[in-house]
């Protein structure tokens, strides 16, 4: 034993004179670090109640609960996360996964309460002292546990597409679709928003599992027109997608198209289990007026319930506005046929070129059938009624689009002005640019709308693509007068539109008369909205119906009118778009079933 080993330990006595390291008052003197994972905060303004935090929490510490003052609305479930701090392990995975970035953590780590129940609360609803604190854990921009970027879709370039009506969007391949499907959070906010309440997360999950047949069956549960909807649906689901808040929403519409494209038409019956559905099993008959999306949707669901269904269509082919209002480059006709041929194969009969009210009366249908569903759509154009709009070279967009679909040649002028800022205006603009390109080899179409660029009702990509196709879009002008010389159109006078809606949100445009423009043209197309043609309703029937605002017929929640045998749906009731029509048709079909079984 060395003497050093005995003496050396006594050196620790020097510590007796040193200051201790202990913090006297840790609650006040020792705040958590800048990015400490303390108690949660939730910004209700940003939170959409998608429940991703609840889904990812491995301790099941989070429940989504209704909170006072938070309403359920489009894109917002109205639920908010309630956190049980008896279970929480402070891993902050909920913060990292939050697609809106609303959920964060404060650096507060001490808190004393009397009741154990107080440690289970909804951050953001309960007033906590750390709610307005800046410090604490937030999701780093460097890490992404969710993929916020959409898989690109292959589209034809402007040069490849501007002369023809070939479909622009080419659709996902398997690899792309699975990658895109991978991004879904399965929050289901889209289901609530979709008018047809399609099980969107369900079919996206089936794509992920590469079970296309199951996905296809899920589509047909609520939507019998997947090829059509997969191309031209107004996709309200994508507008509310949880990923939309911080990145790009899931390409729900294109995934639907991907599913429908994978199943060959000859396999439809086998996949959907309708092989033996040939003869109607019920001896009740239903007549449907209009072979548009609403009518065919009602027909499909009635047919699989076992009813005999016959559709009366005024035009020579099926599809309604989907065929006669939407250009072929967006929705090829063979795709419409694919959806319709399957439904026709289930025993649904369609009688074309038969206009109810002229060729056959509604009263006749009422006496021949047990119930009637009508979905006649918005086929009439609306006029601006400005001076000169009665000229023969002033057209309605709907009429021109119908003529193009019918295969009739239209007399395209070299210099055209289109009035309107909606999707139909874009459709006619882009149709006319193609026709001009074919005829003259150059484009001279100008589209103007009351609404300024930021509030134009048309889809953004439509405006961008129209410009790529060399159309000029000059929004924010109100049409004043069409200049006519010797019966020929010289152009359109416009004045600046300063606001479209008044403070209460009603349509009440204001103009600045000092700012003027003149658009030269020798042909003008009006596309400021569509009207309905209800001439097939006789006075006697009309007297049995109630009419609401803007001349719309009033129906109950099952789309049943005051005449119990008459059901009405589609654009003339809701929309206008395809998915509302499909949803109306489905609900009406169920209601007709209930009505006929009474």
């Amino acid at each position, binding site marked *: 034993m060395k003497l050093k080993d005995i003496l050396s330990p006594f050196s620790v006595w020097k510590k007796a004179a040193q200051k201790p390291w202990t913090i006297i008052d840790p609650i006040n003197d020792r705040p958590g*670090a800048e990015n400490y994972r303390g108690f949660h905060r939730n910004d209700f303004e940003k939170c959409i109640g998608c429940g991703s935090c609840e889904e990812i929490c491995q301790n099941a510490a989070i429940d989504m609960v209704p909170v006072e003052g938070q309403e359920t609305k489009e894109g917002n479930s109205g639920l908010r996360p309630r956190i049980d701090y008896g279970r929480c392990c*402070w891993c902050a995975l909920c913060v990292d996964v939050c697609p809106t970035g609303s959920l964060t953590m404060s650096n507060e780590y001490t808190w004393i309460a009397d009741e154990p129940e107080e440690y289970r609360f909804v951050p953001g609803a309960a007033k906590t002292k750390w709610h307005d604190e800046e410090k604490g854990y937030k999701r*780093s921009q460097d890490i992404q546990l969710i993929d916020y970027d959409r898989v690109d879709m292959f589209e034809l370039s402007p040069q490849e597409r501007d002369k023809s009506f070939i479909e622009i969007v080419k659709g996902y391949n398997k690899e792309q679709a699975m990658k895109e499907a991978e991004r879904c959070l399965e929050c289901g906010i889209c289901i609530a928003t979709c008018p047809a309440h399609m099980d969107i997360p369900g079919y996206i999950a089936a794509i992920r599992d590469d079970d296309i047949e199951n996905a296809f069956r899920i589509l047909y549960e609520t939507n019998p027109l997947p090829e059509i909807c997969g191309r031209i649906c107004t996709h309200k689901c994508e507008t509310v997608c949880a990923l939309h808040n911080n990145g790009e929403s899931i390409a729900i519409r294109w995934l639907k198209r991907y599913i429908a494209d994978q199943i060959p038409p000859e396999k439809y019956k086998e996949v959907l289990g309708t092989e033996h559905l040939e003869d109607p099993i019920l001896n009740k008959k239903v007549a449907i007026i209009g072979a548009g999306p609403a009518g065919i949707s009602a027909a499909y669901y009635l047919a699989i319930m076992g009813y005999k269904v016959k559709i009366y269509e005024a035009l020579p082919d099926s599809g309604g506005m989907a065929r006669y209002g939407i250009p072929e480059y967006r929705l090829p006709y063979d795709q419409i046929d694919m959806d319709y041929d399957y439904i026709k194969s289930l025993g649904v009969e369609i009688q074309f070129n038969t206009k109810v009210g002229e060729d056959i009366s509604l009263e006749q249908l009422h006496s021949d059938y047990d119930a009637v569903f009508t979905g006649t759509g918005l086929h009439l154009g609306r006029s601006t009624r400005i001076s000169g709009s009665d000229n023969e070279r002033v057209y309605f967009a709907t009429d021109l689009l119908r003529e193009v679909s019918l295969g009739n040649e239209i007399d395209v002028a070299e210099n055209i002005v289109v009035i309107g800022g909606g999707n139909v205006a874009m459709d006619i603009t882009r149709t006319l640019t193609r026709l001009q390109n074919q005829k003259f080899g150059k484009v001279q179409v100008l589209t103007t709308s009351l609404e300024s660029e930021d509030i134009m009702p048309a889809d953004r990509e439509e405006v961008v693509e129209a410009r790529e196709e060399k159309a000029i879009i000059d929004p924010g002008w109100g049409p004043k007068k069409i200049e006519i010389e010797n019966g020929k159109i010289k152009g359109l006078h416009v004045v600046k539109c300063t606001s479209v809606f008044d403070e209460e949100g009603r349509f009440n445009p204001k103009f600045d008369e000092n700012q003027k423009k003149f658009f030269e043209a020798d042909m003008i197309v009006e596309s400021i909205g569509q009207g309905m043609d209800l001439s097939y309703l006789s006075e006697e029937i009309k007297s049995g119906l109630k009419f609401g605002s803007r001349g719309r017929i009033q129906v109950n929640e099952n789309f049943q009118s005051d005449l119990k045998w008459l059901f009405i749906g589609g654009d003339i009731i809701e929309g206008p778009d395809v998915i509302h029509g499909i949803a109306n048709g489905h609900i009406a079909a169920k209601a007709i079933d209930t009505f006929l079984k009474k």
Partner: protein
Amino acid sequence: MTNISKSKYKDYKADRLKYPEMENGKPIIDLESHKFTKIWQGPQHPGVTGNMSLEVIINGDEVVNSKTHVGYLHRGFEKLMERRKYIQCFPIVCRMCVPEPDTNEYCVSAAMEDLAGIVIPEKAEWLRTLNLEMSRLGSFLMWIGGQASSLGMGAIGQWTIGMRDFWLDLFEEMTGGRVYHMYMIPGGVRKDLPAGFKEKAKDLIIKTRNLLFDIEKSFFNNAIVKSRLIGLGIISPEMVDEYGIVGPNARASGREYDVRINNPYVKYAELNIKMITSTIGDAYARAELRYQEIHQSLDLISQILDKIPDNGEIQAKLPNVLHWKIPAGQTYVKAESTRGEHGFYMVSDGSEYPRRVFLRGASYTHAISVLEKLIVNVSISDIAALMVSLQTCPPEIER
């Protein structure tokens, strides 16, 4: 071993040369004979490292036979993970070892990356290296306090736990958590270093070195420590292979094996690191070796701080973690914890959940079979010192 305790009883002497009597190489222990006493050390006992228990049979003051009992801390982590999505595993695994959670985090993340074929960014690798080495340091500081306390020197424990807390402050700034950091996730790490971190860490390295100097004077140059630890629990080189001993316990018996050097992971290959070994194999040699490894850790941390790139990505792109499926396969990922080789075996069946996760922790052998072997003939007052000198960690046994 040489101290034979003196008995008050005239008719019986606790003569360890006589008792227990051997028959066919096995001791005959009959508690009814009143020659032996059975005592329990643990599960609630300050002298055991965590919640495990030793059923010790003594003759006089000396251990004749012992059985280790585990099961007081079983939380079923491995099974829990089979019901968790891949991304939900990292908050669980860190709880497998309180003093040194990051090795678990690293292994489970690296296993997933290996199975899924994800390559993590350069900077994330450096941050992981820093995190792992800081975590080794924190664990060593806790160990040295325990080793001193097991010999009755509580003051040293207070210093080192205090110093460890300063390192936990740094962990808090770096990761957002003090004890369970939950910092490494599959694909990289969750946060970049905050501003001013490197300077703080360098200051703390100096502070820690000063403390180590005090510890050297009071603990290693200490007649009592030497008399009690030298010759205690000798691990022979043959035992290393026989029992599968790893880490400092094996290196103190001459085995040159350190995962950081033999199978370098993260950025250890780019650091200047030397194998530390000893040939004596007793508790004092193990303590000295660990003391040198603390210095090595401090040296490595300052090397890492100098080499971490300022810019760069910290996370590789993951697929949507809510339904992340990893292709079917299996892998074994290992790292050097303070206790030795720490390995995770992971099997994926191609679904969203791991099919099997298995932890091979060093303590499984060290605390169960090695301890049972070494404890025989040790005085009951030295059991705690022996157990701490093996640096065992019961949660690692009961995953």
